[in-house]
């Protein structure tokens, strides 16, 4: 049971957090033929764009209302209208997702009102999906923006079923949180389909940001869930939500369509994967395919092989709440102790983390705590690299952004197989770090008791 505290300081140093609008943009990017539009100044979009480009190493569709100083003062209706019309004319999208920013929220632009007015003035857009989400930069974090965007997509796009009692029990809605990679989503899709079920993911970045080479050039998203498919989600028998921040969307979907939901706080690790498989067995009425029986055995074996290396590690982890709980808990299961946990935003699940305290703070806090607690494993996004270097501890990159390695989209950490591979990756990282840094010499144990009294880590291991 963790205590949640806020870092009490005025200056955030080496931020862990990213802003809401780009979280919303990521959610919009999981829709087919979508153009995310940030209502703000050009920089609001371009920073987000660069961040996603560096992370996914892909062309990223993202537009801006390019608010000028005058427009910011007078109100941005014209900029929004122009942006929408230009985007439609130039890129022929199937949907535009509009996220507000700090600039336009401070001004207090009524974007819902703008959209009504745009439709009045341009009747041909009456049925064109324009989904707006309010995501001021100055509250919440990336995960919150993603959450709000998915709720709004459910509100705006899902059709209320004509006959609520008639459900397609083979159809399953999946609401994956922002902590899942395209690879995770593909893995989850495969698992669900293996039980004879037909999942619809909202959003589905597995099909848009998975780094495939498209057949032709598309200025919008190159894949993802279609607007029509989202509309039909009301007919599905079940909804699976992944991550606490998907609860609001799951509840909105349930309220609208009557489809019951099951929320999985975690999908990484043995217990979490067991829970998923058990649920799929239940709703599909099928036995688990042999493949998962084998994979489960492999994961158990990997846990046993991996515990020698991960067990006893003092973990410093910085991640958004749902990833923090998912990955932190799994490493805790493997015998690592969470000594330093930093996150970006409040969430009811933070207190479930197996540690004393979760700090809503920045990477400076994480680095300081990691140093104080003598942590010897760091897990956070790529901006943790400087801290890892200064602390000289093994560093596993996880989350967005991951700009200094390739293949971020295809990292998988869910299910039996993903959890198994995550163990190998982290354990191997620890082994490699030990090989590179532990040089046992005739002087290593010259004064072992002093080191023991000071609690200093003394090299005790050597790998071969």
């Amino acid at each position, binding site marked *: 049971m963790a205590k949640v505290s806020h870092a009490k300081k005025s200056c955030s140093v080496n931020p862990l957090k990213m802003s809401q609008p780009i979280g919303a943009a990521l959610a919009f990017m999981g829709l087919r033929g979508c153009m995310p539009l940030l209502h703000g100044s050009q920089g609001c979009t371009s920073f987000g764009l660069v961040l996603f480009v560096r992370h996914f190493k892909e062309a990223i569709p993202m537009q801006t209302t390019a608010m000028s100083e005058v427009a910011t003062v007078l109100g941005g209706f014209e900029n929004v209208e122009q942006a929408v019309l230009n985007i439609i004319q130039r890129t022929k999208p199937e949907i535009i997702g509009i996220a507000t920013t700090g600039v336009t929220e401070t001004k207090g632009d009524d974007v819902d009102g703008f959209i009504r007015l745009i439709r009045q003035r341009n009747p041909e857009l009456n049925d064109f999906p324009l989904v707006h989400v309010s995501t001021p930069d100055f509250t919440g974090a990336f995960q919150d923006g993603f959450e709000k965007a998915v709720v709004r997509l459910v509100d705006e796009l899902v059709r209320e079923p004509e006959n609520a009692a008639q459900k397609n029990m083979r159809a399953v809605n999946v609401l994956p949180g922002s902590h899942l990679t395209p690879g995770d989503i593909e893995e989850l899709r495969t698992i669900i389909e293996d039980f004879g079920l037909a999942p619809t993911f909202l959003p589905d970045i597995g099909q848009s940001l998975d780094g495939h080479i498209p057949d032709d050039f598309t200025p919008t998203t190159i894949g993802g869930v279609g607007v029509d498919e989202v509309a039909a989600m009301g007919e599905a028998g079940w909804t699976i939500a992944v991550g606490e921040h998907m609860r609001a969307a799951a509840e909105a979907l349930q309220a609208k369509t009557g489809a019951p939901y099951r929320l999985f706080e975690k999908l990484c690790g043995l217990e979490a994967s067991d829970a998923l498989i058990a649920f799929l067995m239940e709703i599909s009425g099928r036995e688990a395919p042999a493949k998962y029986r084998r994979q489960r055995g492999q994961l158990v074996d990997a846990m046993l092989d991996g515990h020698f290396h991960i067990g006893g590690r003092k973990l410093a982890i910085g991640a958004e709440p749902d990833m923090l709980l998912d990955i932190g808990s799994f490493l805790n299961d493997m015998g690592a102790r969470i000594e330093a946990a930093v996150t970006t935003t409040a969430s009811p699940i933070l207190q479930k983390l197996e540690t004393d305290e979760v700090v809503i703070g920045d990477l400076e806090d994480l680095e300081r705590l990691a140093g104080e607690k003598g942590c010897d494993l760091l897990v956070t996004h790529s901006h943790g690299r400087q801290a890892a270097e200064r602390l000289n501890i093994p560093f596993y990159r996880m989350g967005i952004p991951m700009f200094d390695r390739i293949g971020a989209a295809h990292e998988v950490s869910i299910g039996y197989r993903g959890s198994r591979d995550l163990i190998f990756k982290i354990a191997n990282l620890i082994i490699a770090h030990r090989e590179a840094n532990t040089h046992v010499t005739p002087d290593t*144990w010259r004064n072992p008791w002093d080191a023991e009294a000071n609690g200093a880590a003394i090299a005790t291991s050597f790998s071969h």
Partner: protein
Amino acid sequence: MSVSSKIQDVFNEPGCSKNANKSTKEKKKGCTKQLQPGGAAGGCAFDGAKIALQPFADVAHLVHGPIACEGNSWDNRGSASSGPTLWRTSFTTDMTEQDVVFGGEKKLFKACKEIIEKYDPPAIFVYQTCVPAMIGDDIGAVCKAASQKFNKPVIPVNVPGFVGPKNLGNKLAGEALLDYVIGTVEPEYTTPYDINIIGEFNLAGEFWQVKPLLDELGIRILSCISGDGRYNEVASSHRARATMMVCSKAMINVARKMEERYGIPFFEGSFYGIEDTSDSLKELARLLIERGADPELMDRVNAVCEREEKRAYAAIAALKPRVQGKKVLLITGGVKSWSVVAALLEAGFEMVGTSVKKSTREDKERIKELMGQDAHMIEDMKPRDMYKMLRDAKADIMLSGGRSQFVALKATMPWLDINQERHHGYMGYFGMVNLVKEIDRTLSNPVWQKVRKPAPWAKVGDSWQERALAQIAQEQEALAADPAKAEEARRAKPVCMCKGVTLGAIEDAIRDGAATPEAVKEKTAASGGCGACAVRIQEILDQGAIVGQPTQTINVAAE
């Protein structure tokens, strides 16, 4: 001397206490378990020789043979060097079909030349393997020619794998040192505090947990055979004043022959365990003083031992609240066992599986042997039975050698390696504290609860564990219903693993008049292998009169 006469010489080792009890005929058969086709798991003589010599860090170790011998096995040992890294560079002649047909001697000679040109090591050790031995490559002659030509020691280590097991290879490696290396170089200077350490391989660098104490006492390690060893050190080791033979009888021939040739006294000691470390330091001091060192050395040794013991026990006591009452199943052979037991008892662990209650010195030998026997039995155990044993013992953790690791892990039993293949140093005073910490770390890992959870598709009673227990219960029931079968099963229980002698055969021998373990051995061959089961045989004898009918056939192992 030919390989076979060398082997006979090694088998005649009078320094070996086990050997002394053997008949001439038994000695001829060798000191180790006879290899059983289809039932052997250990390494070959080449493997053993390489293990013994490879820690010499500045030497080029050249393996003469096809790629299997070296290519499949190189860089897999955890010895540590404080300087040269050449020992980790792999050299092999990689014999091809052509070499087999035309002979590999020229290639071997050229290989020596290349190594000297490229690496210029102080010496080359050339290991003979099976194939070149079979085609008659004379590595002795090649080494001699190369030594002369390049003016550099090129040492033949004649250990083709087929001559025997790993243990024999250790000894043959020692013979190579005695024949070609030791005594060939004079040390720059000598002191009355010079010692040799034999059979210490500095795995995980753990010898450096002890060396600072020797440094502090002014005791100089003239040569360590072979952990972090150097060629010139071992070549001048004949000038040491005393030898400590660590933990293993594997190279006893070296220690004894050095005593014979150079008058260097030796003792068997261990740096595993708090008490054992103190004992070894004191014994070293005693031997050095006997040979002329200043007697005040003993006072300093006593002071250091007292200080270190106090520190170690204080550190262990601090861990006590975390581990008190946890049950440890300790399964290991060798002399490390007792040291480990003493430290664990001190930390508040409870020992299960082996009857260790008192910690008096008189029990020591007996416990050592008992645990040796347990380790032996575990190796031959079915996973199913092992699982039951772990469950019945209600142990929290099992400590054993690497071989039973996977069975323990598959039975989701916390397990810690305390033998050689591990990565952590457990030597000296500090090492024992390390061990207790490692056990604590393993025990407190939540992973064990996680992996024991049933799968989503598990049906009650259908896990392999439950099936195994049910199967065992069923078999026991069947036996209970059939006294003849039960008796048969009881008698079929193996006692001597090496010679495959059952409890029934031993009882029959006793009934036939054998009254001592030696007499039982005469009749059944039991305890004629590793000797670990002698203590069990004594127990059977102690139980008194054997009841039941003698059987017609006495299961005597083939002579």
